[in-house]
């Protein structure tokens, strides 16, 4: 293990009392507990694809230690995302979800690797493909379905939609529709952590397409300048909408774009690789060494959004091959079976349970009420009850600053 005991100790200490997320389908993520289990060294998983390093003398460890509980939790979490996205797809096709809907299936290993590596106090911000990250940050499928169908029970009370999922209490700062902005915003989150002397990191996620934005460079410069605890996570799914990375980027590798920033490239279909790389990054940031870039090589099974069949710029064969060879859920499943953490039958039971939980969440969301018209003017401004009508009768808009 590359991590020093001191850092581990610090990581334990940073854990909050309530670190488990409340979602029913989601298992406990108690960091300290898991670490303790890990130290017993139940199961060792080799990282298959070696990490590529930039500006780093030493990289993350090439093997990951895990336990039965964690393995099954990962499997269940990833399966939940997969099931949820399939349901969302159907919901959209039956016109119960409108507008935009960007599905996360295929990239589950990134979200769950992230979940396993960071704590609730670590800030996360991502772009529009946010369903998986939202779940990884403690959201529930019910909140997602409610938001997708525009219900008051949604995580943004039906005002956000697919691209704008947020969870304030778990430090998930949202999905953002305009790509590239998450880098400066994430730098701001990191600045606030440093400013308030908190021992946490900010993770700003964007895709390979957004990495060509100028503001990403600006944010990298500023974060490096002030040694902000920022992890820039690039989910490289190889297509910015329908434009292949090599058609948009002169150099289609993203972890080594800036000479002064250290970077790691990890296999984004391997949840253990993502986890180890992110733990390494977190340690790097908390040691005060400034920001770090991590590129996760991943793949999305669905098209860019629902209007995109996903087959005009790539072939069905390509998708099929990756599904067969690199599927993140199958990968974990194989390890579980190989290590004897569970039997096929047990996994089938888990599959059924997850499917049922997701379906329950969906039907519950369908029954939830839609927002009332009064909600149109709420949340415009803080204390905005006085601002609902700007008329000549608005007499007491002024009292709050007295």
């Amino acid at each position, binding site marked *: 293990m590359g991590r020093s005991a001191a850092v581990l100790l610090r990581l334990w200490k940073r854990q909050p009392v309530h670190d488990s997320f409340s979602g029913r389908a989601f298992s406990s993520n108690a960091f300290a507990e898991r670490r303790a289990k890990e130290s017993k060294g139940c199961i060792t998983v080799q990282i298959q694809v070696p990490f590529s390093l930039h500006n780093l003398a030493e990289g993350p460890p090439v093997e990951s230690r895990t336990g039965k509980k964690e393995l099954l939790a990962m499997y269940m979490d990833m399966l939940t995302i997969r099931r949820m996205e399939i349901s969302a797809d159907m919901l959209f096709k039956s016109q119960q979800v409108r507008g935009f809907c960007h599905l996360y299936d295929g990239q589950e290993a990134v979200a769950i690797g992230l979940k396993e590596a960071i704590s609730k106090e670590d800030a996360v911000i991502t772009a529009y493909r946010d369903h998986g990250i939202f779940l990884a940050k403690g959201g529930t499928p019910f909140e997602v379905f409610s938001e997708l169908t525009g219900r008051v029970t949604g995580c943004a009370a039906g005002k956000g939609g697919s691209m704008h999922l947020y969870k304030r209490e778990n430090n998930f700062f949202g999905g953002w529709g305009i790509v590239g902005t998450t880098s*400066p915003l994430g730098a*701001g989150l990191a*600045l606030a952590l440093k400013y*308030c002397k908190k021992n946490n990191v900010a993770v700003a996620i964007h895709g390979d397409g957004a990495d060509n934005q100028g503001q990403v460079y600006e944010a990298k410069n500023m974060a490096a300048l002030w040694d902000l605890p920022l992890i820039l996570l690039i989910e490289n799914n190889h297509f910015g909408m329908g434009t292949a990375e090599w058609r948009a980027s002169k150099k289609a590798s993203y972890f080594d774009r800036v000479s002064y920033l250290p970077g790691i490239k990890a296999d984004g279909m391997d949840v253990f690789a993502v986890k180890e790389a992110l733990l390494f990054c977190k340690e790097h940031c908390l040691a005060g060494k400034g920001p770090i870039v991590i590129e996760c090589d991943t793949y999305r099974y669905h098209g860019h959004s629902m209007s995109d069949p996903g087959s005009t710029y790539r072939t069905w064969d390509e998708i099929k091959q990756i599904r067969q060879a690199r599927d993140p859920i199958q990968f974990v499943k194989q390890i579980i079976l190989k290590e004897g953490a569970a039997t096929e039958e047990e996994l089938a039971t888990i599959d059924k349970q997850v499917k049922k939980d997701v379906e329950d969440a969906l039907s519950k969301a369908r029954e939830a009420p839609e927002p009332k018209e009064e909600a149109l003017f709420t949340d415009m401004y803080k204390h905005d009850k006085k601002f609902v009508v700007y008329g000549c009768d608005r007499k007491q808009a002024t009292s709050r600053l007295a």
Partner: protein
Amino acid sequence: MSRSGVWIVLSIVHDKTLSLSPSLLSLGDHPPRVESGWTTKARCFTFALLRKQAAIWHKVAWLQLAFSARSADSRRACFAIRAIGESGNSLRTPASTTHRTSKLVTNAVAVKEAAASSAATKPGHELLMFEALREGLEEEMEKDPHVCVMGEDVGHYGGSYKVTKGFAEKFGDLRVLDTPIAENSFTGMAIGAAMTGLRPVVEGMNMGFLLLAYNQISNNCGMLHYTSGGQFTIPIVIRGPGGVGRQLGAEHSQRLESYFQSVPGLQMVACSTPYNAKGLMKAAIRSENPVILYEHVLLYNLKERIPDEEYICCLEKAELVRPGKDVTILTYSRMRHHVLQAAKTLINKGYDPEIIDIISLKPFDLYTIGNSIKKTHRVLIVEECMRTGGIGASLRSSIIDNFWDYLDAPIMCLSSQDVPTPYAGTLEEATVVQPLQIVKAVEQICE
């Protein structure tokens, strides 16, 4: 008008007067004879800060002073002092309007020339507008450790208009953060920091530069509170100098009010005097909403006496600069001073304009504005914003929507011309509204 004398128009709204300041001054070629005797309940101090102008009108000496006096609780008292010199003829007002003028004088007392009180006894302290802004910012930074400043050259350089001078030494490099020249990113960074509870004050070195951060301000800053269903607030202040300066060229003379006014979730205020600059700065920092504070390049050196004790202005409230009954003139920022300049002439001509500094550009204080319109039934809007899609256009439509029945004349709106601000002095002057235009417009409205 054969006699030299001083008329003091005095209407005190509240008797706890703490500070007095001259908002407009004009003097002909004869020094006015100032006579004595304030008899107000409050401690009022007159001071003769009289600026001699070139003798525009031969043998006419006249002086008008409009004082706006304020008390700590920001209730207003308004004063207008008028001195009529000897043998004035070119500004002679018709008999009817003279009559009208005399009706204005609700409480006239003579003041002796020597009665200008000594500075030592004046309450409050006198400072320039950039100093007032600095004072407000400094007080808030001392009070709340979450308040921080970021922008280009705000730290070691001290701010391009000296608003943050000395802050870096006092508060440290991280709280007063010198950023690279990357408006898009540092504004985004401030918004990200604000999402977690910091209260950053972002200085746009010049308003025009903020266009590079437009995406951040519009998509990220304005909408988050709403799209997150109220989960997040962004208590950020974005401030900076804007407006047509002295031949700064098109890019550095922009008024971005019209750009930002349609962004939902933003609040916009424009300061126009040191008093309200400080109060609004403090209020903006304390507000949970994203606030854009517009400052004007030409007003940074405006001097005024402000109270020593802490005060705060309301972000949503317009300021009644001068009560009147003939026409409501709505204005803000630098144009307030152009209006006040025009008001001197107007008063002299016998008009009684009500001047309102709307302060809050979004949302409009339609309560104050509406009450005024119900009284005067005539509206003139004077702004420095662009004619097309500007603040004036929005204001006019709000007034039509809400107060159509009270209007006796079409609303007039004097705005800047729809051109990139030219460099040449004469052209630049022709771009923005000049006092003479205001006078003519009022004459036309009141016909």
